């Protein structure tokens, strides 16, 4: 069982790394979709034979539906609304981003080696992968200019939290898990709509240029 879990976790990490190095928006969205699908068996695998019930199954199905299909569809729609096809001129280049990703992984392993896990929960890989995804998501948000890539970064971060959730606290009620999923869904839904309309109205979704909408700077001018 553990080898299956580890395989999934490694694949999740790889999708994050691909996302860090991807320049085309289409590839990035597909990676996030793939990551969502990869996340879905985790509740089943981590729950163990005893928890293999309708609860875990429902969560898995919901994950595939929302993270694997819903979000990518929303993001793809938002991309079609604007004229941008690739992340132009990121603050940190793609190769440098990959390197930074490796560094973040080191940090994640460092952190998790010091964080004692309750015995008998998940595998030793759960914690570093979760932390890495959180950090990588933050890095994407900070280093990219396009609004859509930033939403993708947010999703990756959220996936890290999800891994942490199902890995460490597999016994938390289904309702909590589903509630978080719904929250994220609502957030991404709103962001997708905003980006879609931003792309139409402003012909760009460059967050740097959006700071011009700021109030007090306008006053200063």
């Amino acid at each position, binding site marked *: 069982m553990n080898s299956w879990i580890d395989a999934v976790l490694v694949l999740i990490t790889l999708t994050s790394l691909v996302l860090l190095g991807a320049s085309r928006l289409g590839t990035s969205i597909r990676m996030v979709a793939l990551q969502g699908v990869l996340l879905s068996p985790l509740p089943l695998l981590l729950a163990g034979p005893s928890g293999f019930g309708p609860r875990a199954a429902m969560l898995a199905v919901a994950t595939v539906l929302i993270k694997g299909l819903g979000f990518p569809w929303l993001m793809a729609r938002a991309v079609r609304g604007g004229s941008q096809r690739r992340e132009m001129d990121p*603050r940190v280049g793609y190769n440098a981003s990959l390197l930074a990703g490796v560094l973040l992984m080191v*940090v994640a392993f*460092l*952190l998790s080696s*010091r*964080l004692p896990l309750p015995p008998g929960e998940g595998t030793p890989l759960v914690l570093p992968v979760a932390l890495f995804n959180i*950090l990588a998501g*933050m*890095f994407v*948000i*900070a*280093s990219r200019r396009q609004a859509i890539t*930033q939403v993708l970064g947010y999703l990756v971060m959220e996936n890290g939290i999800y891994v942490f959730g199902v890995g460490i606290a597999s016994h938390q009620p289904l309702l909590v898990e589903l509630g978080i999923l719904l929250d994220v869904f609502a957030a991404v839904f709103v962001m997708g709509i905003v980006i879609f309309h931003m792309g139409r109205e402003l012909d760009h979704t460059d*967050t*740097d240029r959006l*700071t011009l909408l*700021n109030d*007090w*700077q306008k006053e200063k001018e």
Partner: protein
Amino acid sequence: MTLLLVALGLLVASGTAALLCRRSPRAANLIGAGGAAAACALGLIPAVVGLGGGEAKFDLAWPVPGGSLSLAIDPLTAFFLLPLFALCGLAAVYGAGYLGGRPGRRSPGAPWFFFNWLVAGMVVVVTARNAVLFLLAWEVMSLASYFLVTHEDERPEVREAGWTYLVATHFGNACLIALFALLGPRSLDFADFAPAAPAGLLFVLALIGFGTKAGFVPLHVWLPEAHPAAPSHVSAVMSGVMIKMGIYGLLRTLTWLGPPPLWWGGLLIGIGAASGLFAVLFALAQGDLKRLLAYSSVENTSIIALGLGVGLVGLHTGTPGVAILGFAGALLHVWTHALGKGLLFLGAGAVLHATGTREMDRLGGLSRSMPLTSATFLVGAAAVAGLPPLSGFFSEFLILYGAVQHAGLHSLAAMVALALMSGLAAAVFVRAFGSVFLGAARDGTVRGAHDPGAAMRAPLAILAPALLVLGLATPVLVPALAPVVEQLVSLPAQRDLDAASAPLAVVVLGSVVLMALVALIAGGRRLLLAGRTVGSAVTWDCGYAHPTARMQYTASSFAQPLTALFGPVLRTRETADAPRGLFPDAVSFATRTPDAVRERVWRPLFAHVSGALHAMHRLQHGRLHLYVISIALTLVVLLLWRLS
């Protein structure tokens, strides 16, 4: 108590209903004003009953930490409820005419919503017996009045006034939160207060917190801005009742603090004297009628502060007569000013409504075209300026009577200040009434003026006789204040108040005789003139062939000798374009007297604070990625630090 709760419910319900009536401004106006007026009429009953000494209570559990929904009516509460309901009800009727008479403007739903919430907030403020509930109601009152002040927010000076008010009121609220936190570390119910700090500190906090609302100098800066900006019926309620909530809070706090040391009374007398003289001088220099009334409100709360100060000094020195008369005078002045200033603001609103201007130098001669407004304004002015037989005279008389019985520097200061203030206040109102209602119209726009419609006339016609009755009934009324005074001084007060009402009766009698004489003379004049032709001609014009109405004595010229005398305090700015040559062109002359405290204390202070905080703007750069990086770095560093 049930009636009071029904009134509260009615206020909230009708305000909300008025807000929801977006389609029909008429319906919104009717619902809002009708609900407020009906609720106030209902509320008067428990207020009158409570004044007699009957205690009513209402308690309900409330899940808010430290809070409980406990309301009660005791004599002190009832004393403040009475003018609150009376004035708010009349102001609501007036407001129906004021807001409804201007079709095409935005819906009156929102102002009615806030007006009714303001009234409800004030009712809860005086009835609340729990600190959380009190602060909540206080905040509702402050915010509702803020939105009423900024009703005409398309004008920049109104927005400016709104900011000033909002900042000032929250400065006061901060002190109040500190006050109640220190008063009730054990329980936030008024009955179980156990002060955890020196009483002196609590007194100062209460003085700042409640003084901001009451408008003691230098915390008065919001009053002269907010009152002219608000619609007139709101100004009436704010000036007549809302600033009295500050006095109520101060009185209520005094009942928790135990025996007062001498410096409390001294401080209150000092504040009252300084702020009263300051305000009355600035009232004298104002050209804007409503701004003048606002400064006069500051002056009148200062008189109340003087009375409280005399009372506290009396309590400290153990002379019950002084204490009782001081508090009784202050309380009576609360009523006088509530009704009188309410009436004056409503009258000023009628003038503004009819002429479209508040500039006294452009008005004039309105007594002929607006006889009712003119007559009622005169009554209000006499009451607020403290002329017998109106109650303003009696409240000042009681304070002086108390001060005379205490030989000391404190009472001497109070007497001198009060005498000077009364004289100057009389000048202020002679100037205001004379320039607005007497003489001839100084400006063409004023000529078509007429008394307002029935809804706006009725409150004026009710308030003026009510003031007159309040004045004439003072000898009966003062002994009836005993339960309220006893609650404040914890001493039997009936005997002293009975004794004090004897000289009041003499004054009333004298006044009645005088009024009868005046009426007799007026009747005689009419009798003599009957059947003869009465002509009118211009006054002697020094040989100048074409005198115009613009050449009359203006309000500014009337005040000039006094403003020149007090020039160093007032710092009136004159901008003149003097006539030149033999055939001078257009000339102009303008004076402006900005508030000295605002200009020389608060403005520099806020400029410094703003400058010091400007560096913080660099942190608010709006670059999202830097925010995210700083959050992530903080998290990682914290994790590494805690886990090492």
